[in-house]
């Protein structure tokens, strides 16, 4: 099956993701429309998007321990990549709630992710991160590389890039291109360049077809 045969199957994700009112909500709506263009899902509990000016991070997926139910996706206003950040956090939400057992991150161990897990490890971007983690003398760079090499984080970044590329949504593409430019200049790439990402893109497409979210 070729990559061009993709398209959403199942229920639109946007029905479960409840945006805040106002201008920022409208900005974010484009990201949900992009997801809906690419894939659907099965049963999915609802989650609210909250705008939090006090958030230290750019964005955050919160869930309640130990019961494993989703709390919210929080976004800090005024960041450079609001739509890409939202798609990234939706990636965490789906990993935690929609694939495998709700309340656990499926990307780490679930069989459906096996091809993706193997593929992402072969990319140049991940090799560069591993090199920093193993060889840098800068403690902050090592910690950040270790963080970026976490399976859940690699999944969320893969998912965000997959949705962006497959939807072709122009604002998301602008945000991705900015991150790719930064990544190309850095020893700590957060997103993959086009060629490096191709096998990852295919592995995510296969995963979504296997679980019935894409044609």
């Amino acid at each position, binding site marked *: 099956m070729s990559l061009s045969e993709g398209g959403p199957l199942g229920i639109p994700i946007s029905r479960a993701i409840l945006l805040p009112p106002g201008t920022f909500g409208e900005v974010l709506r484009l990201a949900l429309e992009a997801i809906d263009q690419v894939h659907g899902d099965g049963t999915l509990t609802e989650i609210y998007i909250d705008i939090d000016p006090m958030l230290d991070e750019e964005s955050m997926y919160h869930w309640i321990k130990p019961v494993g139910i989703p709390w919210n996706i929080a976004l800090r206003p005024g960041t450079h990549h609001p739509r890409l950040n939202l798609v990234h956090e939706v990636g965490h939400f789906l990993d935690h709630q929609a694939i495998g057992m709700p309340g656990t991150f499926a990307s780490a161990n679930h069989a459906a992710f096996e091809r993706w897990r193997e593929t992402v490890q072969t990319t140049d971007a991940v090799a560069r991160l591993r090199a920093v983690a193993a060889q840098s003398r800068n403690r*902050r760079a090592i910690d950040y590389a270790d963080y970026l090499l976490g399976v859940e984080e690699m999944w969320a970044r893969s998912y965000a890039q997959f949705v962006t590329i497959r939807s072709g949504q122009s604002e998301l593409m602008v945000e991705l291109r900015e991150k790719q430019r*930064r990544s190309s200049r850095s020893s700590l790439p957060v997103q993959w360049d086009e060629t490096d990402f191709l096998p990852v893109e295919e592995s995510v497409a296969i995963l979504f077809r296997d679980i019935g979210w894409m044609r």
Partner: protein
Amino acid sequence: MTDRERRVTRLIEDLGFDEQEARFAVALANGETTGCVRAISLPLPENEASRQATLLVEHLGFTPDEAARFVAGDRTAIEAVAARRVAADVGANRRDPIERIGT
């Protein structure tokens, strides 16, 4: 320039980070954040409890009493909420959105 600012600047100049990323990396190394996925543990600290209890009522179907007990560490409060959510079909995106607007 503070020590923290120097560290941020060094990450930008030496390793090509953008500013937000450099600030995040410094916070990560200082143990001030665990990243962009966070499990909320109970009981919540007082300064967070009220705000989060409000969110539980508004977003997750808790009653004010259940929310207050839950953020104070009483996990049994969630059992009634979970039962109501199951009864109401938590797979809400299965249903037609127009139907949901009316609920």
